[in-house]
């Protein structure tokens, strides 16, 4: 039991930023992102308690956590989801900076809102490929889809995002 606790504590510290960033892109606001990210780790903890030591040792943590996070988001969509509009950064960041950072944060949050508005199949593909920076093969593995499907979904997702962006065409 002690071993799993140590493993989990290290995993939380190592992956918290990753999981939170992906959750932000999937939900579009920091409040929901924190809920999804927390839920992801809670589920991971419950799952670890049932895993054998061998299974824990062979775990591909990153892909595993992403899969759990995607499931958390999918399950939330089925329920009623109140859309929260963040007016300003109400929660403290770990690196509270000057106004430049606040501006950047606003732009990032605005982009997150747009990503979160994508249909879920495009959203998952775009988030894993471009927000999280996985390879197409890794995305395909995490989503359980063929690489071709992933590529098509990423492409359509990006196109939709650009379409919102004043019809700008960048390669």
């Amino acid at each position, binding site marked *: 039991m002690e071993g799993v*606790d140590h493993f*989990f*504590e290290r995993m*939380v*510290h190592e992956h*918290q*930023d990753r*999981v*939170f*960033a*992906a959750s*932000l*892109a999937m939900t579009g606001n*920091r409040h929901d992102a*924190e809920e999804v*990210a*927390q839920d992801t*780790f*809670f589920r991971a*903890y419950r799952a670890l308690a049932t895993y054998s030591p061998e299974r824990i040792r062979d775990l591909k943590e990153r892909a595993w956590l992403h899969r759990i996070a995607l499931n958390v988001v999918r399950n939330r969509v089925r329920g009623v989801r109140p859309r929260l509009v963040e007016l300003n950064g109400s*929660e*403290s*960041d*770990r*690196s509270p900076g000057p106004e430049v950072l606040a501006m*950047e944060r606003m*732009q*990032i949050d605005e*982009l*997150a809102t747009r*990503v979160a508005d994508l249909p879920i199949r495009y959203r998952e593909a*775009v988030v894993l490929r*471009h*927000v*999280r*920076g996985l390879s197409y093969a890794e995305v395909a593995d995490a989503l359980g889809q063929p690489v071709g499907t992933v590529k098509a979904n990423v492409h359509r997702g*990006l196109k939709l*995002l*650009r379409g919102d*962006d004043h019809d*700008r065409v*960048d390669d």
Partner: protein
Amino acid sequence: MIALTTDLKRLGAVRAPAGFADRVLAGVGMADSYARFETVLGDVYVAWNRLGVSAASRSASAQDFEEWFRKDVGRPLEPAAAPAELAEKIQDELNGKRRMRFDLRGLTPFEQAVLRKTREIPRGEVRPYGWVAREIGHPAAVRAVGTALANNPIPYFIPCHRVVRTDGHIGNYGGGGPEAKRAILTMEGVRLKRLEELARAGFRYQGVRTTKVFCYPTCHTGRHALEKNIVWLHDEAGARAAGFRPCKVCRPAAVA
């Protein structure tokens, strides 16, 4: 022109909010939570986790408490709403009922033994440091007992204030200095003036002529003896020579 994929990458570099990891760990019961409780001693900050209460302090502010906890206990800590059940247990403890569970994981086996033994001292009574040392099987480690009690992470609930110097003086107190120790003992019904007078006169034990038993002066078994039957004793040898045996409840000496 801003490349969309570059922006998406920046979104991916967002960091989790402050305290996120601690909230996760607290959520699965791996970090400690804390809250402020109003008690007869004033406001007390208490930290707990799934194993029990892990720390208590009359800190001036939540920030002070967090800093002290992180330095002293070294685990993540998260503020939480005060559970009603714990609030009740805290009141009960301070009223002399023992209901609380503790998490003493970070302490050495010796420190844990000292604190567990200290917890056996009833409200309204005191014992010398030497008594704790002898009871846990380290009769020579009186100073180490003092150190362990000075570092007690859960004062008030593990009643280190009930351990006094062997010569009967009150001694120092990690939970707020000698004055705080006096105040708490007085609140618990210990007659400090009388205790100090006895100490000055060199009397350590109270013997009861009719039962031929000698006790620590605050032991509850000797409390109802008639004044005319009480004799004051200087030391164990003298007590035994006068035909007294040590009390089996407060154990002022090893029972032969």
